[in-house]
């Protein structure tokens, strides 16, 4: 259970880190702090530049709208990615725990299987060695009998 909580904490930490880094490094050129806003003085609107001011304000509005949509997209995107990362981490940790638990519970049965397999292999090896030993002994006996016959 504590591993799942650990995974969620990691997920939250990652999401906060991602948002902070995104704001700090990627949006720093677009972020305007409160004191900066006070220093910005709008251009006086005169008859000469009123048309230009309208075009600019329309353009600004479009830019702002686009920024807001892209912000929404990035926010939801980062949330989805963070959620997926959190799920992946928790699944990984949970699976690791389950596997360890399974092996601890079934260790004796696996050990028995390994011992049985080893015993079977040893039996086959001993059979082969014994066969060779008996055949060699028979060969030596036959040779000695042949020698005696020749003598």
């Amino acid at each position: 259970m504590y591993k799942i909580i650990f995974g969620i904490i990691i997920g939250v930490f990652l999401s906060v880190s991602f948002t902070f880094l995104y704001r700090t490094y990627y949006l720093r050129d677009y972020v305007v702090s409160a004191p900066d806003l006070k220093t910005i003085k709008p251009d006086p609107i005169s008859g000469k530049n009123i048309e230009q001011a309208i075009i600019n304000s329309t353009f600004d509005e479009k830019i702002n709208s686009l920024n807001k949509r892209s912000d929404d997209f990035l926010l939801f995107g980062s949330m989805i990615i963070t959620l997926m990362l959190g799920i992946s981490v928790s699944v990984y940790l949970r699976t690791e725990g389950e596997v360890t638990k399974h092996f601890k519970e079934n260790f004796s049965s696996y050990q028995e299987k390994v011992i049985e397999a080893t015993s079977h292999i040893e039996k086959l090896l001993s059979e082969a060695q014994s066969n060779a030993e008996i055949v060699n002994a028979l060969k030596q006996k036959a040779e000695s009998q042949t020698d005696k016959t020749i003598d």
Partner: protein
Amino acid sequence: MSAIEKQKFDREYLDLLQKKIESNKATTEEYKSLDFFIKSTVDIPNYVLNSLAEFNLYSYQEYIDERKKDFSPLKSKLEGQVLGRITGAISALKATL
């Protein structure tokens, strides 16, 4: 001539003996007769007993008892190495008959 020496060894008897040894149903007399047969055929004395001595077992009965135990540290070795040696010897001897 003792009963062991009178025992007739043919393929059928050796097959039966092998099965009995594998299922740990053979008697000490049968093990003795097998050792006698190996000695008379290939001049190797106490072939089975010497295999048992490697595991600090000095009689056929100890071997039979050890294999009957449910939990014995020697059991897997005895059912592997010693049994393999005995069945290997029997199969080699069968080829000579």
